[in-house]
Each structure stands twice: as C-alpha cells, then as structure tokens.
C-alpha cells in the first residue's frame, strides 16, 4: 500500500512537472477531447501529444478510449484527489502549529506590554 502510494505520487507529480501536461489536464477539466484536437491546441505533432497523454495516463490522471479511429481523452476518476489530500495533511499540521505559535506570541506581546508599563513607573 505504502509502496503503491509512493509509485503513484512519483508518477503523478512527475506528470505534473510539465507545463503542456498541466495545460492538457486543464482543458480536459472543461471537456473531453481527442488527441488530435489536443495536438492542434498545443501546437504540436500527434506523436508528441501521444507521449504526453501516455505519461498522464500512466499516472492515472487521464483515461483514453478509442472509438473508431479517434482516441478520446478524459480526466481520470480520482485525478488529483490524493494529491490534494496529501497537501491538506501538511496544511493541517502547519495550521495546528501556527495556531499554537499564535498563543505563544500573544503571551510574549502581553508580557512586553506589562514590562513596558513597569519600566515607565
């Protein structure tokens, strides 16, 4: 399970490291598209786009289906959900830390005000 997640993360973050592939995901988020349409939109050859889609497919971010002579791409079902959850964990840890930090800093501020008042006397 851990191993699976690891491999999965490697693949999906690797897939996301490329601007064209991020653009493809964005476009597929709006509507399904054929590989040839994607190639045209991103000004690249069919072969080039096939490679990008292949990487996205391997990462589980995109699925493709061939109907007749056209291969249609759509977003993978659980695309990015795990990644979002992963980031959310960090956010929760740091959110909790910072809330505690706020309390510590509030006490320092209060102490400084009290000390300031003492000094003035």
């Amino acid at each position: 399970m851990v191993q699976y997640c690891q491999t999965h993360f490697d693949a999906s973050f690797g897939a996301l490291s490329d601007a064209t592939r991020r653009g493809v995901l964005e476009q597929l988020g709006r509507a399904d598209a054929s590989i040839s349409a994607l190639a045209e939109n991103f000004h690249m050859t069919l072969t080039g786009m096939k490679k990008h889609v292949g990487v996205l497919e391997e990462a589980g971010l995109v699925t493709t289906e061939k109907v007749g002579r056209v291969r249609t791409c759509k977003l993978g079902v659980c695309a990015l959900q795990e990644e979002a959850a992963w980031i959310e964990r960090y956010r929760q840890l740091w959110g909790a830390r910072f809330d505690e930090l706020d309390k510590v800093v509030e006490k320092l501020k209060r102490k400084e005000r009290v000390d300031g008042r003492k000094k003035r006397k």
Partner: protein
Amino acid sequence: MDERRESDATPTKNHTTVERRSERELVVTRTVNAPARLVFEAWTKAELFRRWWVPKSYGLTLLSCEMDVRVGGQYRLVFRHEDSTMEFFGTYLEVTPHSRLVWTNEEGDGGMTVTTVTFDENAGKTLLVVHDRYPSKEALDSGSTAAMPEALDQLDELLASLGSSTETK
C-alpha cells in the same frame, strides 16, 4: 451550543497556505499578528519553540528540546509516540536575527532536508515563509507528516476544540 459565546474571544485566524513548488520543495506561508522580533523569539528559544512546534493534538510528547541557535549550532528534539521515541536533529546554517533562519534536518536516511524560514514584518505583522527542500522527491512524498496519518485523521476534530480551549495563565 455555546459556539456563539466563543467567537468574540477568538481573534480571526490567519490563513495557512501550502504549496508544493517542485518535486523536492514545499513552501508554507502564514501571517502572525506580532512584530518579527517576537515571532523570531518563538522560533529560537527552546522553551518557547517546544510549546508550539508539536501540536498537542498529534499525540506526541516532546521529551526534550535542545537548540543552540547560532551558525553551526545543533538542535535535537526527542519525542515519544506511543511506545517508541523519535529524534529530529540538525544544524543551523544561517541565523539572521528577526529575519532569517536556515537549518538542516539530518535524521532521514536519504540525505538532509534544508529548511529556510523568513520573517517579513509589515505594519506590526509578520509574514512567515517556511521553505523545505528535500533531498529527493521520495523523501518529500513520505515526509514526517505522511508517516503519522492516524494522528492526522483525528486532527480536524481536535483542531475544532483547540480554538475553544482557553489556556491563559
């Protein structure tokens, strides 16, 4: 039932953002309502640092916290989690009072993580930017927070109660 009563006592919390900037980098930002020198103090004095670095809700007990905050100085945190102990340790690479801290984190097997914290004061508030650079993407994927999912599952609930627990002494 008494949600309404708490609201006026709790100041609005500032927003924490987390961004995975690359395969090896994670950037966390947060504003703290205090001048940089106080925030810096909370990051560099062990007796203050230990009060917030490990959120109470994580089920970890901080057994010891030693920090020698100067260039080349070491830190070492020892935790107890259920039946085992964990250690986090490393070296301070840069210490610029009230503005910048850089340290390494060396307990991992796969090389060291470098953390850079900047303190940017503006109108009495301090923007904190915490930048972690991991030795590899694997190290980041399986980072310390990912290693304690069971504690994290309970976090939401506990965070909700955190706001209401008043600990003014």
